[in-house]
Each structure stands twice: as C-alpha cells, then as structure tokens.
C-alpha cells in the first residue's frame, strides 16, 4: 500500500516544483529554452515508484502548467498522463533497474513529452512547422529538462525514497 509519508513527500515535492517553475524557470532560460520542472518531477516520481503510477499527479501538475502559461488548458495534462503511464509500464517491465536504465527512461520520456506537446500545440493552431518546433523548442527544452532531471532525480530519490525504502538489491551505475 502507498505509504502516507511517501504521499506527503510527493505533495511537498509538487509544491516545490511549482514554485521552481514560477520563480526559477523564467530566469534561467537559455536561448528561449526553459526547463519544465513540473513535467520532470512527474516523470521522476513515476520512475521512483512505477508499481503505483497514478494519473492524478501528472493531471494536476500538467493543468497547473497550462494555467500558469499561455498554452491550451489541458494540453500538458494530457501529454503528462500519457508519458507517465508509458514510462511506468516500460520501467516496470525492464528487468534491469540500475540508475543508468532509470535515467535512460527518464531522458526518453522527457523527449517524448516535449515532442508530443509541440505536436499538440500545432494541432491547436500554433502556426509553425514541425521542424521549427522541434529544432527551436522541443529539442533544446528536452535537453534542458534532462539536465534538470538528473539533479532532481538524485534529490527526489534522497528525500522521497531514501528515508523509508530499503533497497532490494544494490543499485549500480551502468
């Protein structure tokens, strides 16, 4: 069963991710690429507990992202639910749960998330070509997300998992 402390930790983490998105993300933009703390956090939480993936967190944080930004309301929520479910299924079925595999799934999920979101924006009327959307936004943002994701993963693993979970087998790099 889901530990109440885990749930509390996830909520606290979500609040921190939201504050980072509002306070930090606009100020650390590099060439128009901004990290998506909310999406990165959702995927990390999914990978930290793939046995209990819930669509509620990605839906709420995705909706918050849409409401705080200027994009179609529901777009990021839709994309995040799909990506976290997908990441959960893939990671559950991967026999190897080393950090390397986890980060690979995280990076792939972030790329898929950015690409799906750009496709959805274009479907909603953003007047740009897919190539432009990919080169100028999806790719740089995904790379930035990956960088942020590595840092967030180790912090989240320490505070969400480290306190109460005993490793079943030692995790190795590679």
């Amino acid at each position, binding site marked *: 069963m889901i530990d109440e402390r885990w749930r509390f930790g996830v909520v606290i983490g979500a609040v921190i991710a939201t504050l980072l998105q509002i306070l930090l*993300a606009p100020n650390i933009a590099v060439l128009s690429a901004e990290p998506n703390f909310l999406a990165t956090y959702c995927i990390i939480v999914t990978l*930290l507990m793939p046995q209990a993936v819930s669509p509620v967190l990605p839906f709420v944080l995705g909706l918050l992202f849409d*409401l705080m930004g*200027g994009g*179609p309301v529901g777009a990021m*929520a839709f994309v995040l639910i799909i990506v976290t479910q997908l990441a959960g299924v893939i990671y559950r079925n991967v026999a190897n749960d080393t950090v390397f595999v986890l980060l690979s799934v995280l990076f792939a999920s972030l790329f898929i998330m950015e690409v799906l979101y750009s496709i959805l924006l274009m479907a909603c009327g953003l007047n740009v070509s897919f190539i*432009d959307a990919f080169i100028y936004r999806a790719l740089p943002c995904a790379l930035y997300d990956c960088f942020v994701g590595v840092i967030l993963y180790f912090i989240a693993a320490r505070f969400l998992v480290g306190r109460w979970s005993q490793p*079943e087998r030692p995790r190795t790099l590679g």
Partner: protein
Amino acid sequence: MVPRMQNNRSPLTSRALVIVLLVLSLVSITFYSREDSEGFLHAIQNGVSGVVAPLKFVGTAAGSVGEGLATSISDATADESTLSGLRQQNSELRSLLAQAEEYRIKSQEYEKLLEIKDTFSVVGPAAHIIGRSTDAWNQTITIDVGSDEGVSAGLTVMGTSGVIGQVVAAEPASSTVRLLSDPSSGAAAMIQSSRVEGIVRGSLDGLLYLENVAADVAVNVGDVVLTSGLGGSYIRGLMIGTVARVEGNLGDVTRLIIVTPNQTVSAMEEVLVVVSAEAPSIASQTPSNDSGGESS
C-alpha cells in the same frame, strides 16, 4: 531500489481514472481552442496568471539581486586572509557605485520612454516588467499595471524604441503582454520609405518576419518598418524595427524579409502601455487609427 509498493486502487479503477482524466484533458483542450479570449477557460487562465504575478515578480527581483549578490560575495571573499578596513570601504564604495549605475540606467530608460511618449503623443500608463513566461512556448511578459489603470486586452505596448507587443489579458493589478516575437503574434506593418504594407510575424527562432509584401517591391536592408494600423490590431505609425536581411530577389514570391527590433525585450525593465497615440511622421499621409484590437 525501486520501492515495491502497490497502489491501493484496483487495476480496473486505475485504468478508468486514466481514461477519465485523459478525456477531461481532451475536452478542456477542445473547449479552450474553440472559445474566444473572453471564454471560461481563458478567464481561469488569466485569473491564475494574475495570482502568480506577484510570485513572478519575486523571482525576477531575486534573479537581479542574486546577480548583484554573487558579484558582491565574489568581491568580498577574493582576499579573505588580507581583509582590511580599506578593502571593506572599497567594497562599500563599489556597492554604492553599482547602485548609482543602476539609478543612471533606470533614469536613461525613463528618459527614452518620455521621449517616445512625447514623439508619439502617447497616452497611457508606464509599467514595470514583473515577470516572464513560465513556459518556453509562449513569449509573454507580465507588467504591473492592469484594468485598475485602464489597461485592457488589445492595447499596444511599447519599449524604449518601439512596439514590443500587445496586451492579451488584463487583471486588476497586472497584465499579460504577448510579445511580437511570439509565433502567435502578428502586426500589420509597412515599410516607411516605400509605404509597402505587409505583416510582421514572430517565430520560434526569435526573429521577426515581414510577410505578404508584394514581390515586385524593392526592400533594402536598413529600411524602417512601422505598424500600419490595418485591421486595428496596433496603433498606426509606431516603430517595429528595421529590415536586417532579405533572402531572395526582386520578383521572388518566396522572398524572406527578416526584421530586427531595435531593442531586445530581455534587457527591458520598463514599458509603456499605449491607450492612444499619434504618429506625426505619417499621420498626414494616411488616415489615423487609434483603436486597439486582438493579435492575429
């Protein structure tokens, strides 16, 4: 070390929840795309934007303070072992100098805004930029004046050297401005020297493109581009920028004209919201248009 905990929901309930939330998201996207800017979801989005505006301001201010603090810390700890009264004094003086420089830059910016206000007889409040877009896909800024000061959606916003965008949502104490560089922005424009009209559009690469210009019209690098006021989306005769590059030849229908604004918005701190204005240079040649409107 993957935690082996199980969700307390049955697989069927979990799947049903996923489907319900996906459908809810899709319905929300559909409604948002179909409703106009006064619609229910847009209103909620604007409300949330108004609520987080003060937080954005804290973030922007913290960013500036952080830069200054980093410099001060770096200066103060450079020679920690040989700290002396003189060095402390020096540090204090540097801090004062930096403060004075900040006031000087702000004063220059205000002077430029006043010049613009005089030149175009601009009527409207000046505003501070208190926040920037929280996502990479929208080029917007948040300013600290709103409907309480007469700001409404559709009004033109100017920087120290020309148009930078248009108000898309106004809350009582803050407003959201969509920049010209946003791919969803579009301004009816004309080239000052030849009076040829076209549309300036933003793009994801951050450049402004002048489109719909007749193929047989000569466009040269350095030509000044102004708002034409057509369609009522922007006030007529305000400067947008200058032609930076022309790719393609005269007569070529696929000619690409790149316009560069005179100032980058990222460096701006103050802007003017234009409630009404008058452009003396072109007012006598074509009828004026003082109304606001929606971005295309």
